[in-house]
Structure formats: structure tokens, C-alpha cells
């Protein structure tokens, strides 16, 4: 399956991927409204940019083969989709117990504090290419089958 792979050598730490992710997962699909209004009501990007000195990298859910988050999920909200290979998330089932957030050794799961539910990369369901990959100005994110 295709996954998003980060490349530290190319990442310039601009956070544009986070903004693209935020917009793609917003109600309004509008950058300004997403950042100004929807973020205030709990919307968060599924991606996080990490920096250490001059090195930076943008990370999100890896869609692991045997995901720890699915193992830890008590409500059946997280599951592995056999056909696509994606680690999927059904928000209506989530009870906000944060077990997955603790179990994921990649730290790729975040909280939506207003909803009391998790936020996790869905590889931009319905899009050809995830928004973060499309938006990256320096090809530091690739969407490929390795």
C-alpha cells in the first residue's frame, strides 16, 4: 500500500503540511476559517513537525502493518482495513479513553480536546494524494508504495 514517507534532508520546517492537513480535515475547507475558527473549537492537524537544531521532519500515522493503536483500542473505533491496508478510525465509536495515544510508540495520535476524541491521519480519504504531500514545497513528503 502507499504510505506517506518523510525525508529529513528536504524538510525546511515550514509547517505548510500542517496547514494543508488542517484545511483538508476542516468543515469549511478554507485555510483561514480552519485556522482562525475551527482550530479554536478543537480541530488539529494529523501531522506534527519536529525540529532539532537545523534538522526537521513532518510526521503522522504510519499505518503500521500490526498497529499498537488497534491492539489497544477498547471500543473498536480503530481497525485495520484488510482491502486497503489502512489503519482506519471510526470517530462515532471512539470514547476518548486515550489508550491508543499511549500505546502508539510513534506518538502519532493526538487529541481533539473539544470533542474528547482522537485525531489520526486517514491518508486524506477521498483524495488522490494526501493534502500534506501535495502542499509540501520541497518534496519532503512522498506518497509511495515501498
Amino acid at each position, binding site marked *: 500500500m502507499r*504510505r506517506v514517507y518523510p525525508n529529513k534532508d528536504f524538510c525546511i520546517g515550514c509547517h505548510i503540511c500542517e496547514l494543508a492537513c488542517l484545511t483538508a480535515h476542516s468543515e469549511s475547507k478554507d485555510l483561514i476559517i480552519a485556522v482562525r475558527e475551527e482550530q479554536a473549537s478543537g480541530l488539529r492537524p494529523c501531522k506534527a513537525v519536529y525540529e532539532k537544531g537545523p534538522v526537521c521532519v513532518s510526521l503522522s500515522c504510519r499505518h503500521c502493518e500490526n498497529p499498537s493503536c488497534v*491492539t*489497544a483500542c*477498547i471500543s473498536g473505533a480503530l481497525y485495520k482495513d484488510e482491502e486497503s491496508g489502512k489503519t482506519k478510525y471510526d470517530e462515532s465509536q471512539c470514547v*476518548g479513553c*486515550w489508550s491508543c495515544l499511549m*500505546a502508539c510508540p510513534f506518538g502519532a495520535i493526538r*487529541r481533539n480536546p473539544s470533542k474528547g476524541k482522537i485525531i489520526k491521519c486517514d491518508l486524506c480519504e477521498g483524495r488522490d494524494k494526501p493534502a500534506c504531500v501535495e502542499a509540501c514545497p520541497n518534496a519532503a513528503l512522498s506518497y509511495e508504495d515501498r
Partner: protein
Amino acid sequence: MTYVIVGNGVASVGAIEGIRKLDKEGNIVVVSEENTPTYGRPLISYFLAGKIGLDRMSLRPDGYYEKNNVELKLGSRVVGLDTGSKTLALSNGESVSYDKLLLATGGVPFMPPIKGLEGPGIYNFTTLAHAEILLDIAQNIRNVVVIGGGLIGLKAAEGLFDNGLKVTIVELGPRVLSAAFDDVAGKMVSRRLETEGLGIRCGSTVEEVLRGPSGGINGVRLASGEIIACEAVVVAIGVVPSLTPAKEAGLNIRRGIKVDEFLHTSAEDVYAAGDVAEAYDMITDDVRVTPIWPNAYSQGYYAGMNMTGKKHEKHPGGLAMNAISFYGLPTASLGMVNPAPEEDCEICTYADEEKQTYRKLVFRNDRLVGYVLVGDIDFAGLYTGFVRFQLPLSDEIKQELKDGRPSALLWPEHDFETRWTPDHE
């Protein structure tokens, strides 16, 4: 090939998925005492508190058993196991043969010897049926005492309190959550519960359950002499492995059913997983019963794969972890939390009482081996990575962790390349 799984908790689900990953054809039979298909057992506290309904209890979608071609024998108790003829005897007289057997019978509530404990008005809180009973009695009583201040006890207490009951928790230890937490974190949770209006008595025991002439409960008498009025008592001291039918069948047992790294028991073609199994733990480097949810699934999954004979894979070992919230105060604890002095661990803590934030990191030999987080748990997973993969820590990296700044860029280059961005998944 016929696989028989005793139990329908999460270890059982893990086993079904482990088997079906490698064997789409073999027969799978699940035998369970419970009358419901698998459900998210920890969800019973959400159900009792009225946060979710029965419709959201199931752990897998409708049609899960049909889709995986699993035959369910619900409401069936196993009364005998003959590992020679490879058959199970069920309570209804039926006999079931297996080629490979998984015992995923879980745990049963431990009932301490307390005067007056036998009789009506005594409840537990480990199954959906228990939760339904508690929800029912909550409509007719006003006061309840919960014996045990562990995770199950606190969650039962919270759920009953949310139903309008006056609740008092009685805990033998000096603090609540003694196993998963330390003093500071335990006290933060206590305070949060007390602020909401729950009563907590630590360092105390129930000496007697007081009953009226007709046998109904009037209250409990503590060791201190204090009498707490109540009409019902919930016993939540802990669970012990459910060893029927393993014991009678002569399996090697210490606290739980002993298994090797492949989850195989001492009897041929018999495996065990979940709260009933005594298995290797990756942090304590010994064998123990680790009765937690993700562990049960993962043991079940590995047992399932190994049962097919198409794989012979070692389970990576258990890792204790608990994430739980109390009235909006989230907590997470993982690995070694209260190390014994001989473990020679370095402990680093940070607390901000006002913000209700606490962080405790436990280091051993320049590795992170455990943590407790209260309040601010957003970085829990990043800390977990350092424990799970036992990543080496330089002084500089250690300081970053201590300062609450864990990051994937602190991973050794090789680990980052092979785990985050592998060439092949």
C-alpha cells in the same frame, strides 16, 4: 484443523485474527460462559456512567463471527479438559474436540474473607452483566461502598456516583491506584474524585459487612471502627486468573497458566493468552500475569498465528500500560512505575499542582523503562516509543525527555530509518 478458543474477551478476538491471517480454512469454535458476543470490556464503565448505550459496546462490527467463519457457543461453561484425547467437556453435556486449543478464560474477581460478605447485596464489576446489574440496583438504593481503590474500583465508583449514589471507596493501601501509580499521581486522582463528591478512605479495610435481621445490608464497619451506611457493596480488589479447566487438566500453573514465549502451555497443542496467562514481560524481564487489554489482544494474536503451525514466532513480551481518565483528568502509566531499590533506577519527576499536571520518568541503565503522566498526556506515545524500542539515551537526550520534550528526532538515526521510514513495511 479445528481450533477451539475458550473465552470471548479481547485475547479471543486477537486469536481469531491471528489464525485467520494465516489460515482462512480451518474451523474456529469459540466457547464462552458469557451470553454476549465480544464487547469492549473496559467500556462497561462508560456504560454504567450512562456515557454510551448497549449499541456501542461491541468491539467488532456485526457479522464479524460469520465473516471469519467462527462458530460461537455462548452461555457454555467448560467443565473438563482432557489433553490426551484432546476434548473439552461443556456444562450442557456436550463434548468438543480440538486440534489446537487456546485458553483465554481471563480472570475472576477476587473475593476476600470478610465477615458478612456472603449473602445478597454484594456485587462485582468486571463483566457487562455486572454493569447491567449495578445500573439496575442504582435505581433503588442511595449509598454504596466500593472495596478496592484500583482501576476497576474507581471506575465502578465513578459510574455509580454518576447515577446519583453516595459512594465511598475503601482502599487498603496508603493511596488509590497503588499498582499503576505513585503517591503524587494517586493523590491527584483522589483529590479530583473527592472534589466531585466521592468519599475515599485509604489505609483502611472493611472488617464486617453489617446486615439487618432479614439479611439486607445496613452498612460496613471499617478497621478504624467507623461505620459507613450503605445498601450495597461492590468488591473490586482485583482479579485472579480463571484456572478452570487448566488446573484439573494438570497444566503447569504458578499464579496463571505458564506459557513459553510462543504462548504454548505445558500441554501439547494447548495455548493460553490474556489475563489467565503467566508470560514474559519485556521490562521486568521475568514471567508474570499482566492483566491489561493490549497485552491480551497481542498474546491472543501471537498464539493464534502460532496455533496454525505456519508461523513459530516469539511474542515480544508484555508491557504494562494503563490510560484512564477521571472526570476529565487524563492519566497514562506505562512500564515500570514504582521500581524496587535494587533495580537501581533513576527517577525524575515534575509536578504542577495548580495545572493538575504530573510527569514521572523512570530510567534504568540509560534507557527509559516507565512513566506516569497526569493531566498533560499528549506526549505519552513519544515516551512509549523510548520504552518499547529501548532506545539508548545520551545525557542530552535524557534531559530533553526530562524537560517534557520527547521527539522522534531524538531517536538514534538507525532506529529512525528502520522504524519510521523502512524500505519495506
